[in-house]
């Protein structure tokens, strides 16, 4: 028999707006560029983590979304991460490519791997957990559902933060949700995962 797990909460950062469980919690007063938007969210969340400012956009967005997910109840150190996106670390790849003929910078190069966002999340929240980063042209909620469900069923992780963390040169689209066995209103199914992903419309 299949074991039931539940969505404990979800976060969307999209079109310069931030949603928690479907409710808009933040939008800047005026149109700002991506850099200023990320800083505004950071300030809004009252985070104090100087390392944040050194990160690339993918990592910043991953940290901001995770911070919101764990505001009411901190995630524990065994929380696994299952992330997916389309462009990998393309923004940092471009930044590194532009300077390799002069002086490559370790501070940029280190962000040219998509899984670094999971590394940053693990460092900030001290997660000694399993990490999987998948690449797909679109958010494949069926795949992410099955992979997450399996890890939970196999007791490989007790809790998972899973979702879509796409960041490219033109746009970004972040959706993370937290899944474990505590009963909540939303049972973890591919349909409910998809609903949560579209929960700002």
């Amino acid at each position: 028999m299949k074991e039931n797990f539940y969505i404990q909460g979800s976060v969307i950062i999209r079109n310069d707006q931030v949603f928690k469980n479907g409710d808009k919690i933040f939008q800047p007063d005026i149109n700002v560029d991506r850099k200023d938007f990320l800083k505004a969210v950071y300030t809004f969340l009252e985070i104090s983590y100087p390392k944040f400012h050194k990160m690339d956009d993918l990592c910043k967005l991953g940290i901001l979304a995770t911070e919101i997910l764990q505001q009411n109840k901190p995630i524990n150190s065994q929380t696994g991460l299952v992330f997916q996106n389309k462009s990998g670390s393309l923004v940092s790849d471009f930044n590194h490519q532009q300077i390799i003929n002069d002086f490559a910078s370790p501070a940029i190069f280190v962000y040219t791997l998509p899984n670094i966002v999971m590394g940053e999340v693990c460092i900030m929240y001290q997660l000694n957990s399993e990490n999987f980063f998948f690449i797909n042209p679109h958010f494949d909620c069926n795949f992410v559902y099955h992979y997450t469900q399996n890890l939970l069923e196999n007791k490989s992780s007790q809790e998972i933060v899973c979702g879509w963390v796409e960041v490219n040169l033109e746009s970004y689209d972040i959706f993370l949700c937290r899944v474990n066995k505590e009963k909540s209103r939303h049972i973890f199914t591919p349909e409910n995962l998809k609903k949560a992903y579209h929960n700002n419309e």
Partner: protein
Amino acid sequence: MAKEISIVLNQKIYIKDDVIISALGFSTEENIQQISKGISAIKKHGIGSKAYYTSIIEEELINQQFQKIGDINAFTKLEKILLLATQQLFDKNPDIDKNTLEMVIASTKGNIYLLGENHDFSEERVLLSALSEILQIFFGLKHQPVVVSNACVSSGLAISVARQLLQKETTENVMVLGGDLVSEFVLSGFDSFQALAEGICRPYDKDRSGINIGEAVAGMLLSKQPIKGINTAILAEANVNDANHISGPSRTGEGLYLSVKKVIALAQKTTKDIDYISAHGTATLFNDQMESVAFNRLEMQDVPLNSLKAYFGHTLGAATLLETIVANYSLKNNMIFSSMGLQALDSNIQLNVVKATINKELKTILKTASGFGGSNFAMLLQKEMY
């Protein structure tokens, strides 16, 4: 319920076949032959405006092979090697059903070199998802290959993904591929970390000075069913993040320590069961030191251990899979290859590094890897007779 869980965890998967394409050869056998002779793929190559010790597969040789199966101008170098490796697995295993076959592709940077070149490929080709589409269309696979990208442990995690795919009743076989190329993009980055060796790298040696980057594609065919005779079962895999630093290993080896503990628990083994460790051994000061700390914490410092990095270089997304294939050869042939590059063990490293190739009865072996982003990976392989 508890019973059901233990069944899932104990489900073994079997290595049915494998392939390595590297600068040392175009099959597992050719690669094994070369390293048996103590030959390294690492040479000095001019790339961009600098020269680096690295291993490069000659495109001319790739094209000679590839023209038998496709248009050499329609695919990038990495795609051609991935397609050749896959073709080899199909040729050797004609019974594979393309309607049920699942595939997992591991790569850190894919076709990234396209960013720095004028080319006729579409812009999307630089994305890792392009590899999935290319392989699916070329071979007419029903299922879209899954792409995993977790730095230097990518192809290890690909085996974990394969295990999950094999849990589906309808899946009989999963093909796992790992591949990365040497590019100015990657070399300049590691160079900026001052992490590259001047010469062939020397894992665990007192005079080690860094890594070599290498290029390779490794492929493995995994199955739920053992064959008659000697099999290698993959008992379990585990991956645990260090939660310490994005570009340096934890000084306490925490993630590696926890990964090995977890994999041994999952397989219901003890550290005493491990006959050989095929370690990561990049030859950077910090990595090798970290491994020593982790294995000493596990009291595994006396288990024979080697690194294969001086033969192939660090082949990034291919590394874990490539080294597992070589370790599997060792397991089946009861021998351990010399950890090339070791002359005098670093006095800060307390490990039983195999200096010259030895014969040893092997039954259960451990493969480990670590990478950027704090990733660590451990996997147990066991020889079984059916």
